[in-house]
């Protein structure tokens, strides 16, 4: 175990999340069972108290999940000096690869956490949206869906916390990086972009990727603006959801193929992890994109999963609010990225 300030903070957050996650699972299952039973006033009062406790625990859990996301990357960043062959977070994620001891689980644990954390934040937000809508109705018609989302939050948070605690506790001195750091993984011909058409990612054609990035994200901004100005419809949301999926994929490719080399001033180096220490403001750009895409996703959740006779008047203003946040995120990230790239080229 490597003990530093970030490891202590991360461990503390993971223990809190584990406790709250288990509590949320237990209370959500208990509430689910209690919903099926009919009872007198005492039972109803108990159910209400349990509901309040469940809400508070889940709210704290979602808050902790959001905080733990950047702390996790700061922890990985703080581990870099521990190994001579590691120059960025990517290298840390490779520690333990090829080992025969317990360290062999480290890369898989990190991979699962890198997927679990954004999923947890998104599902947590989706639960909050459903809870907000449900709370404004007279007969709580969305309680079942909100409870299911909450159960998912509890399970994901518990899994994430267990993985994080395991990562912290597994000894990391056993195996060093053998294949070099990010230069080998992101700059070689084997990187994930090999699955994409060469006309998009190969150096002479990269302007097509840049054009696609600005057109697609710009298109998303225009679509969000139009949705807000003209009023939203379910078909419109389906288009936004399709655009959302396309922008997530494209922005990932753009980050690796264009943004990282340009912002790092290293034309052949494609490691996005290097941006955290070298160009820290780019994390705000990425954060704005995550905020924008999550907000659009939550708007879809509100419109599709929050549908009920009682919520007919409640859903449109909530969706509009979420789409406004989405517009802010997408526009902010697009403008910041354009400025950063222009400044990097001018230097």
């Amino acid at each position, binding site marked *: 175990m490597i003990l530093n300030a970030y490891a202590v903070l991360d461990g503390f957050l993971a223990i809190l999340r584990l406790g709250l996650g288990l509590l949320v699972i237990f209370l959500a299952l208990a509430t689910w069972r209690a919903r099926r039973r009919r009872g007198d006033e005492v039972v109803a009062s108990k159910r209400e108290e349990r509901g309040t406790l469940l809400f508070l625990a889940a709210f704290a859990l979602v808050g902790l999940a959001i905080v733990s996301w950047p702390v996790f990357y700061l922890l990985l960043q703080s581990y870099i000096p521990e190994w001579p062959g590691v120059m960025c977070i990517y290298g840390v994620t490779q520690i333990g690869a090829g080992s025969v001891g317990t360290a062999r689980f480290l890369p898989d644990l990190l991979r699962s956490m890198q997927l679990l954390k954004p999923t947890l934040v998104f599902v947590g937000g989706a639960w909050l949206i459903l809870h907000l809508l449900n709370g404004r109705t007279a007969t709580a018609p969305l309680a079942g869906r909100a409870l299911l989302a909450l159960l998912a939050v509890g399970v994901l948070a518990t899994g994430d916390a267990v993985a994080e605690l395991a990562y912290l506790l597994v000894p990391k001195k056993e195996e060093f990086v053998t294949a070099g750091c990010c230069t080998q993984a992101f700059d070689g011909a084997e990187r994930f972009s090999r699955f994409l058409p060469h006309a998009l990612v190969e150096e002479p054609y990269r302007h097509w990727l840049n054009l696609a990035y600005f057109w697609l994200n710009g298109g998303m901004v225009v679509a969000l603006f139009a949705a807000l100005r003209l009023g939203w419809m379910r078909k419109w949301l389906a288009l936004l959801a399709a655009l959302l999926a396309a922008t997530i994929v494209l922005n990932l490719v753009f980050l690796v193929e264009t943004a990282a080399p340009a912002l790092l001033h*290293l034309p*052949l*180096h494609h490691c996005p992890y290097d941006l955290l220490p070298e160009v820290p403001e780019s994390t705000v750009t990425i954060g704005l994109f995550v905020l924008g895409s999550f907000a659009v996703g939550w708007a879809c959740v509100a419109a599709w999963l929050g549908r009920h006779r009682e919520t007919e008047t409640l859903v449109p203003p909530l969706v509009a609010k979420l789409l406004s946040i989405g517009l802010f995120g997408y526009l902010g990230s697009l403008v910041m990225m354009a400025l950063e790239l222009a400044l990097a080229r001018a230097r």
Partner: protein
Amino acid sequence: MKRIAIAAGIVSMLALPFLGNWLRRIPEARCALDGGALVTSYRVRLADAQGQERDFCCIRCAQLWLERREQPARAIWVADETSGVMIEAERAHFVRSLVVTTPTTGNRIHAFRDLADAERHAEKCRGTILTGGDRPFAIRE
């Protein structure tokens, strides 16, 4: 109040790239391939087809750079591992040994000005003196 907060958020969002760029206005010398630190004894310098000079942290990084460029380098210099002095790559003696010069790339090729130094390193660190096509930059030189 809400509008002021939104305006402040937008202004700081727009100012951040300028601030970051200004703080990094003095570029530090680092490897042109991966941004790693330069060590005097292992560095490599090459002049590309346009005549622009670039520094690399090790021979491996310079090789990777050249592999991804269509045009060959105009000139290549490597640091003599014993003295740190830059010499033309074609005059250097290269040894591949068990000693890794740069852990981040796993480079194990060492450059020496004097054959005696190269032989001493090869003997001490179980290395092989590279000749002909095995020499780094052999094709591109």
